[in-house]
Every structure is written in C-alpha cells, then in structure tokens.
C-alpha cells in the first residue's frame, strides 16, 4: 500500500531511476539515493498530466515489440542505403499513403507513428484532424497497399494487444 503511494507510476519511476544511474555512469551509493529521490518526486509532481494514461497490459509483449522494432530499424538502414546507392532517381517511386488506425489511445498512436518513422522507407508526416488516419510518406512504394497492410499487421496489431 505504501509502495503504491510512493510509486504511483512504477514504469516511470523505474525509467527515471535507470536513466539517472546510467547518466552517473558509475556505481555510487550517493547517486543511488539521488536516483531514488528523483524516481519518487518526479512522478508525484507530474501526476496531474497522466490521469488517463493507458496501462501497458502485456509487458513481455512490449519488450518483444521493442526488439522487433530494433531489428526492423537495422534492416531499414540497409534497404534505404540500397535505394540511395543503387537506384536511379527516376526509378524511385515515392508515394503518400493514408493508413487508417484503430488504436484508441494517443500514446499508442504516437508509438505507432514513431515506429513507422524509424522503419523501412516510411516517415509519418501527418495525422487526420480526428486522429483516425496517419499520413505516411514512403520513399519507394511500388505497391502502396502492401505497405499499408504490412504496417497494420506487423505493428498496429501488436500495439493493440499491448495497450488494449
């Protein structure tokens, strides 16, 4: 009970704690205390801003998602490098692709938008005013529908499982 009152947002506290320890870059007892103070005070001060935060329901799935994105980022690097080096400018077919999303929380949508920007040949450029469609620019899209379906099945479905 006391633990719950001290750490109302355990994930944020954990993140702050770890970030501070990494920032100090060597293990000292003084910085351990400082990290603990930050992990308690900052969530308390910012509590007003995350009243309706979505809960990460499935932490292992979230970790798996992070690893998947990391891997895709590396693959994306090689794909984009290949396009830059070996394709003539006239052959590169860029396209705007609207991707309708079903995620309900802004946090999940933001995560999806960030993921899209980091992964193969796509950048999230805008969102519809109602927040239900993402506008994506693709560097090389011979088949825009395939890219849209890929995003929906590969990332959105997983995020939906994690947050909803």
């Amino acid at each position, binding site marked *: 009970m006391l633990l719950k009152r001290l750490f109302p947002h355990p994930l944020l506290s954990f993140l702050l704690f770890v970030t501070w320890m990494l920032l100090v870059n060597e293990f000292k007892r003084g910085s351990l205390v400082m990290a603990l103070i930050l992990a308690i005070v900052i969530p308390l001060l910012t509590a007003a801003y995350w009243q309706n935060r979505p809960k990460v329901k499935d932490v292992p799935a979230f970790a798996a998602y992070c690893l998947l994105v990391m891997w895709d980022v590396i693959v*994306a*690097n090689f794909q984009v490098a290949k396009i830059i080096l070996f394709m003539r400018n006239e052959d590169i077919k860029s396209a705007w692709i609207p991707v309708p999303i079903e995620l309900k929380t802004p946090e999940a949508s933001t995560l999806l938008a960030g993921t899209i920007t980091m992964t193969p040949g796509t950048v999230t450029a805008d969102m519809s005013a109602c927040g239900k469609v993402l*506008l994506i620019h693709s560097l090389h899209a011979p088949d825009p529908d395939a890219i849209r379906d890929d995003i929906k099945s590969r990332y959105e479905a997983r995020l939906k499982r994690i947050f909803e």
Partner: protein
Amino acid sequence: MEQIAEILISVLLIVGGIFAVIGSYGLLKLRDTMQRLHAPTKATTVGVGSALIASMAFFLIFEHHLSWHELLITLFLFLTAPITANFIAKAQMHRMMRAEDLPPTGVGTDWATFDPELTMVQPLTDYRPGPVSDEGASPAET
C-alpha cells in the same frame, strides 16, 4: 585477444562511417525534401549505433570499465529522431504543399496540417510549388 578487439572496433567504426556517408550522400542525391528526409532518419541510425557499440567495447576492453552513456544516447536518439522527422515534414507541408496535393483522409475530416480549426499558421494557399531546384526554395524566391 586485444588484437581481435582492435579489429572488431575498427570494423564497427568503419561500418558506422560508411553509413553516415551514405546518409549524407542521400541528402545530396534525392530529389525533394520529403525524399531527403528518409536518408538522415534511417541510413544514419546504424551509423550512430555501430559507433556507440564500438565505444562501449573500447571502454570495456581497454579501459576496463563499462560505459553506460552510449545506451542513453541510443535511447534519446530513438525518442528524438521521429519527432524531428515529423517537424521537418510538417514544415515542408506548410511551406510547399497544398491540401490538394495529398490523398484524401477517407474519414471526412482534413489532414491536421490543413485543418483550419487546428492550425494557428495558415497554409500558403496562393503559393504553387514549382520544380524543386537543387538548393531548395528559399523564402525570397517564393
């Protein structure tokens, strides 16, 4: 052992350098701002990443202590890169594009950049994008 580590670190640094060069080359080569956006947001992630891994390996093997700052740099990079890309894309849409250039949203409302209720800055409606020069259009030319 040290010999192997030296080779490994050198390879990582060279791979990182190559990717950084490819990203910069992409900036020069591609045709318009939206395409150029792809080069630095992606082709450089592996560049920075392998330089950071090389740095961690160097401190671990030759200085005998583990350096954690590289992990933090990765974290901050992953947090900021999509936001930077989004800001550049939005600036480009405000300055160089009109709502008609984009595909329809399909849900009735407009894209947020061109939605009059959501934007404080009005898009330049009287400006028609011309062919993009190598220098990019400067405000004086518009």
